[in-house]
């Protein structure tokens, strides 16, 4: 990034403007689209674009936790998102994305692991969420969190039944698939700090290269903060921190509603499909 580009972005920020035309505390518009198979979602925030795919398979539970299923999230960024990412190694920023998603979703028990147990100690469901990054324009933490939680809500696993000591996994046609029990919907919102005490929400690639520090708040609709990460750079008063949490809560409510609405639309489309006969198309 050239020094004049840095100066350009910084001077725009200093009089409350951004290259993308957004206000300082305005996040990018979220576009969400569910794919063909269950648990497939594509998230677009401005130029940032990624796909999350949730899948499940039967596996053996951990010895020290026989009553819980397994839940795995992989967030490897390939050089498709941008040549700055190497296919093999993980840079520090990618590590922070992985760690924050881990804390936001896995550590905050968004997915109830006990509901994944089939036969305690013998067999359980292993749910894995794979995030594939197609385009990088900053904001990977926020977009990944939304993508994984939306994919978990959209996913349906095959139903199982026990007969004697055998567990039968029914195919999707034999028995209607079972949704996962998602206990709450954590949403990440990231702030970026710049020189002269400038704070910006949802930075894009140029802003993320120029920023000196960042802060990420994960909160769900019922005002529970799932994780809070602010390490250094601009000090904030308690008042400012609470304000940011309120702002994050607003954004979380807005995104959670959008996800549920899109889920409803997708659910209707799916059911109208396999109802076997054409509903009277009442085009209101």
């Amino acid at each position, binding site marked *: 990034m050239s020094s004049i580009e840095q100066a350009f972005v910084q001077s725009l920020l200093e009089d409350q403007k951004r290259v993308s035309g957004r206000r300082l505390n305005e996040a990018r518009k979220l576009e969400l689209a569910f794919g063909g198979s269950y648990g497939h979602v594509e998230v677009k925030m401005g130029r940032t674009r990624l796909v999350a795919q949730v899948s499940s398979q039967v596996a053996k539970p951990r010895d020290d936790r026989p009553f819980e299923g397994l839940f795995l999230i992989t967030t490897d960024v390939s050089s498709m998102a941008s040549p700055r990412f190497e296919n093999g190694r993980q840079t520090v920023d990618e590590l922070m994305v992985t760690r924050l998603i*881990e804390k936001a979703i896995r550590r905050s028990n968004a997915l109830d692991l006990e509901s994944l147990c089939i036969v305690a100690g013998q067999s359980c469901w292993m749910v894995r969420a794979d995030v594939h990054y197609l385009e990088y324009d900053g904001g990977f933490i926020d977009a990944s969190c939304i993508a994984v939680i939306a994919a978990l809500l959209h996913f349906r696993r095959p139903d199982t039944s026990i007969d004697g000591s055998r567990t039968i996994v029914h195919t999707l046609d034999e028995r209607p698939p079972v949704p996962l029990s998602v206990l709450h919907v954590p949403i990440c919102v990231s702030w970026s700090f710049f020189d002269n005490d400038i704070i910006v929400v949802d930075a894009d690639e140029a802003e993320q290269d120029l920023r000196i520090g960042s802060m990420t708040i994960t909160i769900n609709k019922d005002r*529970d903060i799932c994780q809070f*990460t602010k390490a*250094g750079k601009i*000090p904030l008063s*308690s008042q400012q921190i609470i304000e940011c949490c309120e702002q994050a809560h607003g954004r979380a409510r807005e995104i959670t509603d959008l996800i549920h609405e899109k889920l409803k639309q997708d659910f209707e489309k799916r059911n109208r499909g396999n109802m076997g006969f054409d509903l009277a198309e009442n085009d209101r």
Partner: protein
Amino acid sequence: MSRFEIYSPEGLRADGRRWNELRHIKCGINTHSKSADGSAVVEMGASKVVCIVQGPQEPETRSRVREKATLSVSVTVAPFSTTERSKHVTNDRRLQEMSANLQNLFEEAVLTHLHPRTEIVCSLTVIAQDGGLLSCCINAMTLALIDAGLPMYEYVSACSVALFDQTPLLDPNNVEETELASVTVGIVGETDKISLLILERRLGLDRLPPALELGVEGCKVLRQVMDKEVRRHGAMRLASRAE
């Protein structure tokens, strides 16, 4: 451990402290004078962290030569640091994240522009873990950097606060930290403004403000304790030099 035992109605915690009492703090400065430019050991209750600072020195790899001093932090945890001997070293991703957070926090406090093209290597070793690990690391690093004579704007002090329903509990030990959600607060200098805030478990938004206030107060007290320790150590050295 039923919740009753953690905080009794009379306001007493499991280890007998009140809600706003820090654990006993023991700071050792210049503990490894031979092997490091600056060294410090901080014990907060049963949590103990040793910090060794080398630098400012010639950077190891060419890539770290910049207009400002490069701060490289690494945290290692001794396998005997927790009660149950951890078979595998705690996943290094959590430690890498902690090192990144420490580096961000101290880049703000250390006058790195005074030593261009050098590197400051801080290696923290966790000897014992009994809650408040990150705050113990921060305090140890502050003392070690001061001992190394590195120019800093201010002390960086940190402490953690757990939340038992509405009442915040200052400087939780391991038991309180596993049962309750706890937040780590880091302050640079004597302001009320928070530089570092790390929360890793679910906590209601409305229960955060009291925790922040108590955290800020705790940090201020800790700053005094550290300052007194630095002065006491300084006085002792000057006294021996003066003879």
